[in-house]
């Protein structure tokens, strides 16, 4: 039993090493690629994502009925999330490039429900034209990046602000946790989709371990990026943060 455990650990180490070596050019590990998930899992993730997207669209309709500039704003935020999640960022510890997801910031600024619609739009354009993610894995990617990323980012930010954490720290932690929540969910979806008849947890931990060299530092980069955005907005346009209910009028 002990020998098997040691063998497993050694195997995991070499797997991480091989994954590390393979990450030579691109490592777009946040989205599950087209075709990875079998039909059943694709359909299930679509079914889970659908009510969230529907709720987001309902909120969008309500908001845009009150404010005609809301739809263009959401569309432009989708363009920003698209660009952020296509930006290759050097990850020094892995000697490679990866990308942030940007849903933490959209969750903070427009709320998690609208952020789901934003990420669904960005993911669809990426899937159609960049083979970044996929149409069959769109539901799974919406859950990991849109639902989990936005929700965890939003809740972290709000939670920390509620206990009087400063703006920089709250945004930094929101960015980190949004990124890591996305990658943990992606690992879970991937493990469930490809496990076949093997047990879930050993494969899940191996996938998590394989992503650590890029996603761990990338989460910190995403935290810094989110904090940088919020601080810049606070310096240049605090009125926007008040309009988006990120700050109360008295906090400017």
């Amino acid at each position, binding site marked *: 039993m002990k020998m098997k455990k040691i063998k497993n650990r050694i*195997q995991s180490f*070499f797997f991480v090493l091989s994954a590390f070596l393979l990450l030579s050019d691109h490592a777009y590990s946040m989205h599950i690629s087209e*075709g990875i998930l079998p039909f059943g899992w694709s359909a299930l993730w679509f079914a889970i994502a659908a009510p969230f997207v529907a709720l987001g669209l309902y909120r969008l309709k309500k908001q845009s009925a009150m404010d005609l500039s809301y739809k263009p704003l959401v569309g432009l935020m989708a363009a920003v999330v698209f*660009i952020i999640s296509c930006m290759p960022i050097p990850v020094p510890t892995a000697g490679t490039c990866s990308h942030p997801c940007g849903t933490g*910031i959209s969750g903070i600024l427009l709320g998690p429900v609208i952020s789901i619609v934003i990420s669904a739009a*960005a993911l669809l354009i990426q899937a159609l034209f960049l083979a970044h993610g996929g149409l069959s894995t769109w539901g799974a990617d919406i859950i990991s990046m849109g639902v989990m990323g936005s929700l965890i980012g939003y809740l972290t930010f709000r939670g920390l602000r509620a206990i009087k954490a400063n703006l920089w720290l709250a945004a930094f932690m929101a960015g980190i946790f949004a990124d890591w929540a996305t990658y943990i969910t992606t690992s879970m979806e991937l493990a469930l989709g490809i496990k076949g008849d093997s047990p879930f947890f050993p494969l899940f931990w191996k996938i998590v371990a*394989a992503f650590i060299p890029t996603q761990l530092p990338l989460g910190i980069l995403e935290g810094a990026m989110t904090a940088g955005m919020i601080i810049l907005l606070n310096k240049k346009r605090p009125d926007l943060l008040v309009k988006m209910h990120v700050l109360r009028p008295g906090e400017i």
Partner: protein
Amino acid sequence: MKLFSELYKKEHILSKIDARLKMTTSLVILAMVISYRGYAFPLAIAVMSFSLCIMMNIPIRTFAFRFSEPVFIASIIVLLKLFFHGNDPIFSINIIGINISGYKEGLMDGLLIALRILGAVSVMAVMGFSTPFNEILAGLSWMRVPRGFVEILMFAYRYIFVLIEDAMVIYNAQKNRLGYSSIRQGMGSFGTLTGSLILKAFDHSHDISVAMIQRGFDGNIPLMNHKPFKSLEIAFSFILLSALGILWVI
């Protein structure tokens, strides 16, 4: 940004086929690929789609870029399955005194998933390379995708290029002022860059809405009117799907 389809193959025959038919056919083929449990079908689809891409004269660089991520992920999955799944070792390697075995069942499972990825990605690549985005949007509205979502896609697509240009200007200015000379400085600069993008997004959205309201915008954008289907194109799609359906069943 030369990643988008309409910059390429306007003149190819595939680009002239109704986008709604291409989208429906691609979705059915995609569903067939991901629900198939063998090697032959995804392989056949990948070969067929690659051939179509070659016929469309897709530049090698674009092709390689499009497939770099799926191929990378497919390789990782083959490795994962090869070393961690199965009982029947097919080879063993000794690395610094530790024996690592590759298993037959793992290799077969990994290849199955890898082929599925290649088959699915190549189908979507053919559709992407031959269909302009505005036609895809019209197709989505025909498929009864909620109007609000199609409008968001429209705004996002229109402003991706504008924002990328803005981002490049800011990035070059930062780089020329040594904004990325150390990790700490780079993180700060990147935060400022993305923050500026958000500011630009707010400003642009305000300008667009003012301009659109002046032109009678009432909250809804009129989506494209659909032309009637051509019977020849329907027949071609039907024959293709029937042939693939037979291949899928056997």
